[in-house]
């Protein structure tokens, strides 16, 4: 499924001895070999990341979830839907952690209809709640891919041109029941620059592949639940910017907590909870004030309700910087006693266990496999470069 455009079906390709990829180690265990495969694929993806210079950072993503009859299948435990809900909750959290100034919306497809269960917004908790409520949805009828896409497109269309527009479809059904020609919808998505990714839970469906190919997205079919998670979480990283994406300067407010020395903050109401039914607005001290109209909010980031200014704090922007300036990839080298210990975690290398070590091209420090993964997955800063002023400046000028 990795190839973008397979010329032939799987069963038409040459005979592959897939089991020969997996090799037993000296004790007859497979674990090491499997771990190796997973790690290689991770590194492969890591290497790809470096290429994109321009990313769509202000993401507006609609998640379209199939809630048709086919989601009650039990090939994922306990059911396809419940598994999806669980993964989706984790995904939403991770999404907002990595893309704090982006927005998300959720649409479900059931009974040939599409229904928006959560509006495009930047509050992760609200979406998580909506997704959680899906547990109780009755799974009926067939999905309509077209209705789902049209509904998403309707609100994505209205966004300013600098916004990156995306749709992520989770499809459990092998069929779609559409009112008109879906190709027209796909064409519209294409012209609006909406990137559509599809994750199939059952088997490859032509229309999904067509949709993904046309709009520059990806199409994958899951193998099992951990693969599902892997595929879903690939969507956490911002995609390369669409060709038609315009660049612009966006006006933003950076509110600060009004802390005047010596005086107690007055009790005030915040705008974010003013009309929410379940947790009504309470009088509180402190909070964030819009620098333009002085409305108060208790959380950032948020779009000011009265003047429309996007309010963020500097760390929110900083959370996204690592997508733009990732740590440079390390070079994989066979271990030949380059260094006795890993530079970062101080682990002593043992020739039998550590067959590969990793070298930073810039600071020439040697790292172990685990640190290589940790640095590129989470830390996004090379400890070697960051501790020496000479390499620190070099790594910075290259950015």
């Amino acid at each position, binding site marked *: 499924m990795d190839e973008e455009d397979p010329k032939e079906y799987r069963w038409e390709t040459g005979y592959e001895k897939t089991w020969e990829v997996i090799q037993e180690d000296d004790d007859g265990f497979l674990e090491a070999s499997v771990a190796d495969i997973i790690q290689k694929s991770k590194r492969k993806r890591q290497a790809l990341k470096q290429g994109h*210079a*321009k990313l769509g*950072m*202000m993401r507006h993503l609609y998640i379209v979830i199939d809630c048709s009859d086919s989601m009650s299948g039990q090939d994922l435990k306990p059911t396809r839907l419940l598994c999806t809900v669980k993964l989706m909750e984790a995904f939403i959290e991770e999404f907002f952690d990595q893309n704090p100034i982006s927005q998300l919306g959720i649409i479900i497809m059931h009974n040939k209809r599409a229904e928006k269960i959560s509006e495009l917004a930047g509050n992760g908790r609200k979406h998580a709640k909506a997704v959680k409520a899906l547990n109780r949805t009755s799974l009926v009828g067939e999905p309509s891919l077209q209705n789902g896409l049209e509904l998403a497109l309707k609100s994505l*269309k*209205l966004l*300013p*041109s*600098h916004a990156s527009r995306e749709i992520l479809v989770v499809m459990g059904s092998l069929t779609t029941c559409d009112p008109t020609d879906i190709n027209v919808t796909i064409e519209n998505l294409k*012209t609006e*620059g909406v990137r559509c990714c599809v994750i199939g839970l059952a088997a490859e469906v032509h229309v999904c592949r067509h949709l993904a190919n046309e709009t520059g997205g990806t199409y994958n079919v899951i193998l099992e639940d951990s693969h599902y998670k892997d595929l879903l979480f690939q969507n956490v990283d911002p995609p390369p*910017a669409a*060709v*038609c994406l*315009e*660049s*612009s*300067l*966006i*006006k*933003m*407010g*950076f*509110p*600060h*907590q009004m802390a005047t020395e010596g005086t107690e903050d007055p009790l005030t109401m915040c705008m974010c909870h003013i009309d929410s039914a379940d947790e009504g607005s309470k009088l509180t001290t402190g909070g964030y004030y819009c*620098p333009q109209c002085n409305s108060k909010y208790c959380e950032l980031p948020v779009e000011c309700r009265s003047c429309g*200014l996007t309010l963020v*704090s*500097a*760390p929110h*922007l*900083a*959370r*996204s*910087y690592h997508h*733009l*300036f990732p740590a440079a990839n390390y070079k994989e080298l066979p271990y030949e006693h380059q260094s006795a*210990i890993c*530079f*970062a*975690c*101080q*682990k002593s290398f043992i020739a039998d266990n550590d067959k590969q070590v990793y070298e930073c091209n810039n600071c020439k420090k040697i790292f172990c496999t*685990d*640190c290589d993964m*940790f640095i590129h997955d*989470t*830390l*996004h*800063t090379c*400890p070697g*470069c*960051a*501790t*020496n*002023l*000479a390499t*620190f400046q070099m790594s*910075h000028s290259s950015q």
Partner: protein
Amino acid sequence: MMMDLEGSTEKSADFTNTDETSLLVIIMDSNPAQRILRENPHVLTQCVDSVIAFANAHLMQKAQNKLAVMACHSKLSEFIYPGPGKQLDVRQIDGQYEVFTLVEKTIKQNLAKILTSETSTVITESLLAGAIAMALCYIHRINRIKAPGLKLNSRILVVTGSGDSASQYMNYMNVFFTAQKQNVVIDVCALDQHLSLLQQGCDITSGMYLRVPQMQGLLQYLLWVFLPEPPIRQKLVLPPPVKVDYRAACFCHRELIDIGYVCSVCLSIFCKFSPICTTCHTVFKIPSLGVKPKKKKLKI
């Protein structure tokens, strides 16, 4: 006949120790170019002694507590406890607990090694963000190899007299967010100037920030504020967290701004509208004034 009556033997509330282990990584800024050290080199000895006593006090809390100490300079950061290579063979010379003697000897020896190898060129900037990055890798490894089922609280204490320069901003932010994700608390003890960036790190990871008013009482300050582990802190009255200023500084003049313009491609912040982004060289379209721009059809 013994009778167990209901309620007669009420157990005293269980305030005893929890079964948790704490890992403390101390990052000590020993860059000789710091202002306080340039003015009075003896401060370093006092500072090192205080840090060692503090480190031992941490080990004294629980038998399972773990410690690592790093020295941070402008050109290198190194673990000075546990040092690289074999640990020293230490015999007791006085009534001090053997383990504490080992900590003291190891730190002093390794620090001396680093300081003598330091070349004379004076660079005032200590790369603390890099040291924190190393500490996080170290903590990550300990978490990986720890016994399964064990609860380990990790934290990092930075003791520094240097300033925090904006050139490290991105590295700082990366390590703060990583620490937050890994549940590592970052505590900062500023010896000289106020450190606004590191203060943000404390706020993000819910650690303590303290600027020591006078060097004489350094050990007392360390013991009072930084010795209690995060789970105990809520039981003690400690300096209240100050509100941290998260306003952004514009990339053009490095001034704090309330309202600014952000490049949609690279998220650089500017205080005024400019037609081209100085960071990523993107050309912007001129903002259409008034109402929302009408959607234009675009060719591909």
